[in-house]
């Protein structure tokens, strides 16, 4: 018997599960309400963007069992589209965000359509190769600005009224967008559609035999995940006023795997916690140069060997609740 990617969590009544979610979400709201007065808001926004990215990734790896090793493709290219429309065409932030997100959705349809033709380990290699291809494209195309990226992207005024140049205003917008997307993901995984996804994760052949066209479900999940990753990338472009090659590089795809794994694959809150840990680590260890790479590698190895449930997964297991 193969050990599953995600522990089939203890059977829990629906009411209890949503209660633990409500408590967790309230804690989250409280945290993000107090945090900007304690920590630098730009750091928090960075955490939020990566948290959304990791949640989007988790939708795929944790709930469908598909390992994409190329999610930087959607994150990075969405950030390019958002930055380009905001800067070169002077579009307002809401339009730029939507363009970036839509671009990621289109890329998700194309890449997902190709990648779901193979399963398992091949799926991971294909997504990685596709992302590398688009990285090389980004390196050459004029739109992306090559090595320079797109710098000094104007944040603009949201709906013509809220001036996002103010970090606090921007922060509120990021919190609202990310938490809304987070609720959307929670809704998706607890819908009948989400149940089919989990069935595919547990046993794809059996799901086929029950009459589900699993290919179509996998593609829809892939596109949803790519789109939300794109939303995260677009937000990031506005927050940092920058879209660069770092966001499309394979190391970014690795980062999001690490965040999700550390937080807990297939847990609702795991990716948030993982993103917080990794972003904090990258910020505080930045002066140590390449050691960040080594430490990240060590975290990967330790997580896989000793700690497969991740932080939130272990906590949930210990408390015997679903988180």
């Amino acid at each position, binding site marked *: *018997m*193969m*050990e*599953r*990617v995600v522990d089939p969590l203890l059977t829990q009544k629906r009411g209890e599960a949503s209660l633990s979610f409500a408590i967790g979400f309230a804690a989250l709201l409280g945290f993000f309400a107090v945090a900007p007065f304690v920590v630098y808001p730009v750091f928090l926004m960075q955490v939020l963007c990566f948290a959304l990215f990791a949640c989007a990734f988790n939708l795929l*790896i944790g709930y469908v069992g598909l*390992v994409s*090793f190329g999610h930087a493709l959607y994150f990075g290219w969405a950030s390019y589209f958002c930055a380009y429309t905001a800067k070169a065409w002077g579009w307002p932030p809401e339009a730029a965000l939507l363009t970036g997100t839509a671009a990621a959705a289109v890329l998700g349809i194309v890449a997902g359509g*190709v*990648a779901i*033709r*193979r*399963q*398992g*380990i*091949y799926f*991971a*290699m*294909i997504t*990685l*190769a*596709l992302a*590398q*291809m688009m990285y*090389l*494209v980004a390196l*050459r195309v004029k739109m992306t600005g090559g090595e320079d990226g797109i710098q000094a992207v104007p944040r603009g005024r949201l709906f013509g009224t809220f001036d996002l140049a103010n970090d606090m205003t921007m922060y509120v917008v990021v919190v609202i967008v990310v938490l809304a997307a987070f609720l959307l993901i929670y809704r998706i995984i607890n819908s009948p559609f989400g149940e089919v996804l989990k069935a595919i994760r547990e046993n794809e052949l059996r799901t086929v035999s029950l009459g589900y066209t699993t290919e179509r479900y996998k593609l829809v999940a892939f596109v949803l995940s790519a789109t939300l990753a794109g939303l995260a990338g677009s937000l990031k472009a506005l927050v940092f006023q920058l879209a660069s090659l770092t966001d499309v590089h*394979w190391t970014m795809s*690795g980062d999001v*795997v690490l965040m999700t*794994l550390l937080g807990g694959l297939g847990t609702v809150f795991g990716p948030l916690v993982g993103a917080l840990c990794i972003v904090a680590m990258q910020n505080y260890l930045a002066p140590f*140069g*390449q*050691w*960040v*790479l*080594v430490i*990240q*590698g*060590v*975290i*990967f*190895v330790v*997580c*896989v*060997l000793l700690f*497969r449930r991740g932080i939130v997964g272990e906590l949930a297991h210990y408390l015997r609740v679903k988180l």
Partner: protein
Amino acid sequence: MFEIFGIPSQALFAQLLLGLINGSFYALLSLGLAVIFGMLNIINFTHGAQYMMGAFVAYMLLQYLGVNYWAALVVVPVLVGLLGILIERLLLQHLRKLDHLYGLILTFGLALIIEGLFRNYYGSSGQPYQVPEALRGGRNLGFMYLPNYRAWVIAASLVVCFATWYLIERTRLGSYLRAATENPTLVRAFGINVPRMVTLTYGFGVALAALAGVMAAPIYNVSPQMGSDLIIVVFAVVVIGGMGSIMGAIVTGFMLGIVEGLTKVFFPEASNTVIFAIMIIVLLLRPAGLFGRAA
């Protein structure tokens, strides 16, 4: 001098040669990946880092101990292969009962550790490695100039590839190996030490990567990131060929190298994306890969 499709033959053959060189490395690396995948069911993400280590250890041996290229060709694969065996014993063997994905993630983490360590000490700029004395210079073939070292790399990698193929497909040891891939429990029942075979197979696959690294050292600059970019292309090669057969891995590797070389002549701007584009086309037309068995 003559022209083919409006391209001077010199340029064409020069790119073909470059394509064959790249193809040699694709073949050696995808061969190693296929051998490891067959026995361990793991996609060895560390393969690129192990190739880089091959080049670096050769460089360090020459720099600090004065060990020359020819000795490095033997010593380095053994050293790096032993390190691979250590990795298998200490880490990978614990993953045998887990989902594929954990093997990929663990080896990815290892690749980050190795690359990070080398970057710490050597920065990200490249170190030069001299072509060995005996292989300097080249010869004029009439239609093109052939540097000796490049001819040697192509010949040597062909020999290594086919020797590996022979070992696995035509010898008794190879038949044990293939049997253990199909049904390890049954092979163990016959009294064959399968776990040891798995360990040695991993060591062998890693040694192949290191050998490729030593051969690459005089051609490309020896740099910490030389492996990570290459390994992604090799993954695409593996997807195109499918990991079902050893011969498939070799043929696909050389073939794609040549295709890449030709693209450099006719559409230079597409040369580094052409392999990925071929991968997409193959996936659309023949999802199992050119030599793969349908899943």
